Every structure is written in structure tokens, then in C-alpha cells.
């Protein structure tokens, strides 16, 4: 594709095509979108974040897609979200209002080494690609590598496990880059980390049964977001805290962001409920992204309307 209008959003794409998409989007909308490189993956790939901004010194809202590389519908949805933002800004009053007050940060390929590996070697790869000294098994689960109950139940100490937590919190450059970015920014107000599959919207905590202090508000906002999501295709979602809704998981992304003071911290599990799992057919990319966008808008609007 020569521009982002030609880009085929109904198909999965390789890493370079998505990197090119980001560059095209920035070139086409340089007044609204810029690309920030927040770090490098273990194999030296750039960790690109798209920044959608209409002014200086704004608080931020964060979205990331695809920290688990095999969850392809997630990265594909991230591409669609990016195009949606530039298309709707100035047309959709709600998004325009958000962007007139907040910056939106979108990391589409959160685990580029893993994504490349799923494209070329092992479609079912989930983790990062950093070797583990003393083990023939490669990679760390980047959603168990955060400094939030790190090392607790619901993560593994075995490098061969799909949920290997890594040698220490933030040991993975893909994780550390986000940690450094969030800390240096200092004013991120919402943080949504997007996965697939199993159709859930989850809020902290995963590492402890102690309810988050904002649980009532987070629960009500999740209900609202899912109501919006379901209004489009009636896709059934469940919602609740990670530990009560799915399972105990220590060292997870949004537990860390919540403990950093980012109240509106959520993690999504997009389509489907298992019929295809990680091999969701490409014709479901756009419907998945469309319905998810409604929920994201609900979260972002609520964040804007409830400053803290």
C-alpha cells in the first residue's frame, strides 16, 4: 500500500508492513501523529509508539496491543485503531474532545521480536526472544515481568514455561521501555493493555485478592464499556478483576500501572471464545476492532470526564 487508505485492514500483516503503516500515518498526518521510539527489543528492533497530540503538556492515555506475539488480532486491531483516530479526529465530537485535552499513545507492536518469530518460525510463540542463560528455552512472558507481585503465584520460575516471569522484574527491554516511558511522562491517566482471546475486560488486581481501592468505579466503567462493545455485534464479554474473573497472575502489566497511580488501568481479551483462539480468521479483524473501539472510547471518555 502506498498510503493508509490503500492499506488492507481486513488482513494480517508482517512486521515491516506494520512499521511502514506507522510511518505512512505519521507522514500523512504530521500535525496530529508522531512516532516515538521508546526503546529497542532484545533483537534490536525499535519499540515504536504513535503519539496522537494536538497540543503541548497534555496528560496521556496509553494503549498497547500484542505484548503476547501470537495474539494477532490484537496487533491488527491496533493498526485499525490508529487509522480510526486520525479519521475521527475533527469529525467525531467525543474523540475530538478527548484529543483536544489529552494525548493518546498507541504501541501497536509491543513485542516485535516475538511477532517476527510468529511470522517466520513458530506461529504459536507468545514470549519475548531473549535467551535464558543456563537453559535451552528462550524468552520471558512479558505479562509476568512487571514489578507487581513479581515472582508470586500465577507465574513460573521455569524458563521453559509459557508464563516464565524472567530473572527479575523489568528484565525484558520491551517491558522496561514502557516502565521508563510511563515514569518519565509522569501524567498518564489511563492505561489499556490489549490481548486476545476470551472476550473479557479486566481490571486490577491479578496478583492479590485484595480489591483495588477504586474497584467499584472500575467495575461500573467496565460494565459501561462492555455495554457499548456489545451494542455493535452483541459479542458476549465478561468483566471483573483479573484474579476473580480469570486466574491469579503475578507480575502483570496493569497491576503495575495501577500501583503507579494510573487509576484507569484495564486489560482486554478480544475475540473469540476459543473456536479459533489465536488463529482467528482475518475476516474478523475489523469487526473485532470496531466493537473494541467503542469500549476504548467509553474508557477514554470517562477518564477525560473524571480527572484525578
Amino acid at each position, binding site marked *: 500500500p502506498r498510503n493508509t487508505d490503500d492499506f*488492507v485492514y*481486513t*488482513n*494480517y*500483516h*508482517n512486521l515491516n508492513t506494520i512499521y511502514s503503516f506507522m510511518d505512512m500515518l505519521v507522514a500523512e498526518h504530521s500535525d496530529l501523529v508522531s512516532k516515538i521510539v521508546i526503546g529497542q527489543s532484545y533483537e534490536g528492533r525499535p519499540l515504536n509508539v504513535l503519539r496522537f497530540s494536538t497540543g503541548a503538556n497534555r496528560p496521556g492515555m496509553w494503549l498497547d496491543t500484542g505484548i503476547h506475539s501470537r495474539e494477532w488480532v490484537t496487533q491488527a486491531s491496533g493498526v485499525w485503531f490508529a487509522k480510526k483516530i486520525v479519521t475521527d479526529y475533527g469529525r467525531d465530537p467525543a474523540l475530538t474532545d478527548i484529543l483536544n485535552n489529552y494525548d493518546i499513545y498507541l504501541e501497536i507492536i509491543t513485542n516485535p521480536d516475538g511477532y517476527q518469530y510468529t511470522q*517466520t*518460525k*513458530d*506461529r*504459536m510463540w507468545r514470549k519475548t526472544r531473549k535467551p535464558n542463560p543456563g537453559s535451552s528455552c528462550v524468552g520471558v512472558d512479558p505479562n509476568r515481568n512487571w514489578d507487581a507481585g513479581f515472582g508470586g503465584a500465577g507465574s513460573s520460575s521455569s524458563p*521453559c514455561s*509459557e508464563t516464565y516471569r524472567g530473572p527479575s522484574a523489568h528484565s525484558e527491554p520491551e517491558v522496561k521501555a514502557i516502565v521508563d516511558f510511563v515514569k518519565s511522562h509522569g501524567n498518564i491517566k489511563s492505561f489499556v493493555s490489549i490481548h486476545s*482471546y*476470551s472476550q473479557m475486560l479486566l481490571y486490577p488486581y491479578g496478583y492479590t485478592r485484595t480489591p483495588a481501592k477504586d474497584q467499584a468505579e472500575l467495575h461500573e466503567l467496565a460494565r459501561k464499556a462492555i455495554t457499548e462493545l456489545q451494542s455493535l455485534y452483541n459479542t458476549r464479554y465478561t468483566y471483573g478483576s483479573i484474579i476473580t474473573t*480469570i*486466574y491469579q497472575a503475578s507480575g502483570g502489566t496493569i497491576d503495575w500501572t495501577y500501583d503507579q497511580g494510573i487509576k484507569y488501568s484495564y486489560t482486554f481479551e478480544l475475540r473469540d471464545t*476459543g*473456536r*479459533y*483462539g*489465536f*488463529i482467528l*480468521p*482475518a475476516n474478523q479483524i475489523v469487526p473485532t476492532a470496531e466493537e473494541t473501539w467503542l469500549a476504548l472510547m467509553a474508557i477514554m471518555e470517562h477518564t477525560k470526564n473524571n480527572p484525578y
Partner: protein
Amino acid sequence: KETFEGHQVLRITANNEAQITLLKELSEQGHLGLDFWMEPIRESLPIDVRVPFNSLQAVRAFLAYNHIEYLVMIEDVQNLLDEEQRQMLKSHVI
């Protein structure tokens, strides 16, 4: 290049805590090469596992012997991947 010919994805439904325990033990059998997409946690949640072809017989026998319900959710993972690949190539041509 690794392929997934003959790999199946099973959706397992545990009916009690004893079955969850059995499935956790199964998940620790590294030689089977199982890839749990949804891990055995509690009865109310489904368990999805990709089973390599070489382990299918053993796993299905284990489930049947222990009266653990399951259905084959994906008959052949590679078939789906091939279809996905065809769609991607078609997109590249366009």
C-alpha cells in the same frame, strides 16, 4: 520451519477439583509438548490446549480414562494457518 500438522486444540471441561488437579499434572508433563491456551484453574473456566500430533493419542486416552469431558475445537492447526497464509499472500498480491 516448525509446522503444526495434525496438532489439535482441545477444549476441556473439568467437572470437579480432582479433575483440575489431574489436568495440572498433565500440564507438567513436558515431554508431551502441550501448549495451554487457557490453563486449568477452576471448574467454571474452560481449558484450551494445543496438543502436538505425537501426543494426541496419549492425551486423549488420559482424558477418556479419567472421564474428563473435552471436544476438539480445532481439528488441524496447520490447516487454519495455511488458510491464514493464503489470505495474507492474496492481500500482498492485491
